[in-house]
């Protein structure tokens, strides 16, 4: 049972380059989320989606775009990477309406922007 899978797990970018992080879940969850984790700051919500074709901004959306073309996938894009976007990115999912409130997390993607 794969759960939530993130690819790639590690990536190094140069300032100004673009990239896409892919999140895939096999639990038929409606809700999906992208968080970033930085030392001393916990997890901060970037964008989230409450269903296929929908997206919404979280706490720190600037510099990121997302798409939810298929229910099982949630993509996070960086159009022009900046060193401030060096972070560990986590995708999560949850059942419709948030279910019991439990988020199911992937293992994270570590991004370094030089």
């Amino acid at each position, binding site marked *: 049972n794969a759960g939530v899978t993130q690819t790639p797990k590690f990536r190094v970018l140069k300032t100004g380059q673009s990239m896409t992080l892919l999140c895939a879940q096999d639990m038929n969850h409606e809700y999906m989320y992208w968080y970033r984790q930085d030392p001393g700051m*916990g*997890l901060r919500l970037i964008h*989230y989606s409450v269903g296929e074709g929908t997206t*919404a901004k979280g*706490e720190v959306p600037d510099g990121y775009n997302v798409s939810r073309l298929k229910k099982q996938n949630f993509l996070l894009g960086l159009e022009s990477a900046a060193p401030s976007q060096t972070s560990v990115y986590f995708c999560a999912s949850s059942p419709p309406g948030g*279910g019991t*409130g439990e*988020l199911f997390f*992937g*293992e994270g993607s570590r991004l370094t922007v030089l």
Partner: protein
Amino acid sequence: AQSVTQPDIHITVSEGASLELRCNYSYGATPYLFWYVQSPGQGLQLLLKYFSGDTLVQGIKGFEAEFKRSQSSFNLRKPSVHWSDAAEYFCAGSNTGFQKLVFGTGTRLLVSP
């Protein structure tokens, strides 16, 4: 702003000793409150949650937490810590639905022999 606060960045506990990790919240109404654990190199896993009702909630791995409205707290406890409990612990809360959980900054637990 509505938030959760974890005042302790690091805590060291001897194996077999009891543990209490602090979490304070600032929500007007009773929020949804959660504790998650993150082992090194892993994603977060839910330990327990509080929505309403009994203020003492039991979770996985022998953890429990108590919701105290008068103190705006939701502290995590374990009576006897094991070396495998060494990890980072996050308190999280929301009063606007589960899609906008706010996480605390985390407390790193170190377990000494």
